[in-house]
């Protein structure tokens, strides 16, 4: 029994970890291309999930219509946020920018509570709740979908950065803004695109998590969980973000297993990632995949 529980938790960990990875990627995207540490990343999930929930439940739109609409909204939201709030801060000290994103995070949490209330609201049933049996493991269809979505997003990101014109422009901007400008790249457009993509993809993750756990302010905790993932992976590595996400996801579930089986401390899983974060940073201060600067000697 405990063996299969272990396996079940491992699979859960990987699935949740993939989602962490996706959100971590969004965080890294903003950090890499605009040098902003976005403490409001979790609130993107929150806003995305509430928007979708409102469109589907209150406005009564069918899910397959409300969902793309959520995307459009988040696109506009990301661009507007960058243009109105972050653009005037370009060139300001990093600490000011961090304070602003922390402020945004509190602001968005409060305003969603004000509009939608503090209770957990379930999503209407879009996928059957009944778990399906895969190789003897019970997996919820929504989780399965989230796995598919996560992998699709990751492949999408890989393609985007390797082959698309805008993706290359973003990498050039991340490397050096002056160089990017000398190539005719509009840094403003790159910044706005980075925030828009980050907001959209985070919202997608928010909707997926909302479908499983219901929509509530707790969604923004996802943003906090993403920090250990991102830092473990190295702040500026997309691959690192995915691996970091998986590590944190699995770790959480392993901590819960160990806790449940032997320690009985309770809630160990919420703190375990942070302990590991400290240990990893002591050994590898730039994270597992942090950029090594190329130096020719």
């Amino acid at each position, binding site marked *: 029994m405990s063996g299969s529980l272990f396996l079940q938790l491992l699979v859960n960990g990987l699935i949740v970890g993939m989602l962490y990875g996706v959100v971590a990627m969004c965080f890294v995207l903003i950090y890499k291309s605009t040098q902003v540490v976005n403490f409001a990343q979790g609130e993107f999930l929150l806003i995305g999930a509430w928007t979708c929930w409102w469109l589907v439940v209150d406005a009564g739109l069918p899910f397959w219509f409300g969902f793309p609409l959520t995307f459009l909204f988040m696109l506009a939201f990301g661009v507007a946020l960058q243009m109105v709030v972050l653009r005037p801060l370009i060139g300001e000290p990093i600490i000011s920018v961090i304070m602003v994103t922390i402020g945004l995070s509190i602001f968005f949490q409060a305003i969603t509570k004000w509009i939608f209330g503090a209770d957990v609201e379930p999503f209407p049933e879009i996928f059957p709740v009944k778990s399906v049996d895969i190789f003897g493991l019970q997996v919820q269809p929504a989780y399965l979908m989230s796995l598919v979505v996560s992998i699709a997003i990751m492949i999408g990101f890989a393609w985007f950065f390797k082959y698309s*014109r805008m993706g*290359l422009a973003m*990498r*050039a901007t991340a490397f050096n803004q*002056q160089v990017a400008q*000398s190539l*005719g790249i509009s840094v403003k457009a790159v910044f706005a695109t980075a925030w828009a993509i980050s907001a959209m993809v985070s919202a997608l993750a928010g909707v997926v998590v909302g479908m499983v756990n219901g929509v509530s302010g707790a969604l923004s905790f996802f943003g906090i969980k993403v920090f250990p993932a991102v830092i473990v992976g190295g702040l500026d590595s997309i691959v690192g973000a995915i691996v970091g996400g998986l590590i944190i996801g699995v770790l959480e579930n392993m901590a819960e297993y160990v806790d449940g089986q032997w320690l009985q401390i309770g809630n160990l899983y919420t703190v375990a990632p942070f302990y590991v974060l400290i240990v990893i940073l002591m050994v590898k201060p730039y994270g597992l995949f942090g950029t090594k600067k*190329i130096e020719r000697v």
Partner: protein
Amino acid sequence: MGEAALKLAAADEPILSVNNIEVVYNDVILVLRGVSLDVPQGKVVTLLGPNGAGKSTTLKAISGLLGTEDGEVTRGSITFMGEEIANRSPEEIVRRGIFQVMEGRRIVEDMTCLENLRLGAFTRRDGAAAIRRDIDMVYNYFPRLKERTGLAGYLSGGEQQMLAIGRALMARPKLILLDEPSMGLSPLLVKEVFGIIEQVCRDLGVTILLVEQNARMALKVADFGYIMESGKIVLDGAKDDLVNNEDVKEFYLGGDKERKSFKNLKSYKRRKRWL
């Protein structure tokens, strides 16, 4: 205007014309004090001068990159193909056909050669097929870039310079601003790079404004030259006029057989009346 510049103006309308510009950094530091120069279509023009004379600043004023360093053209005008471009954004200026290859090459180190070349074509809208053709063209000029599949940061200095020039060609510019292509290269490589610059200029009809410390090399490939000191143009002329000018020989080309005594340094001060 010098005699040569007058001759130029008579020949045909210059593609780029900088008129008496003044550049100020951070609202207070005056760097260029009335610089004027003309670049005729399809020619190589070189801008020579000692460190800190304002050569790179002149290029950045043209390419618009000045804005990224808190600089501004406060007086005068820069016209490119008849239109005013002073203080425009760098992306607009690239779209208009001016591409600056910055000092120190500045390739994107964590990308491959191919990705760097594709980046050069960022502003182009004429389709993937045309871009692929131009990548082949660049590989034709620089065959050794084709063999390098790793990250551009691991290329040798010469290869990086070739990549930087190739990347500029990918934008299909009308005017390339080259800032010290010889920096950090061995004499042999300098020769090779300059040979290719000459060839490119001839083959593609690209106009080049070249900033150099290596005056000898620059005057070899250039049609016209300007000499800059302390934020001003102090001398200009056609290649041959400059090469045969006594002052240029003494201060920029060197190579006199006999050693100069310190007494003769006075002559340098005298020549400073240029300013």
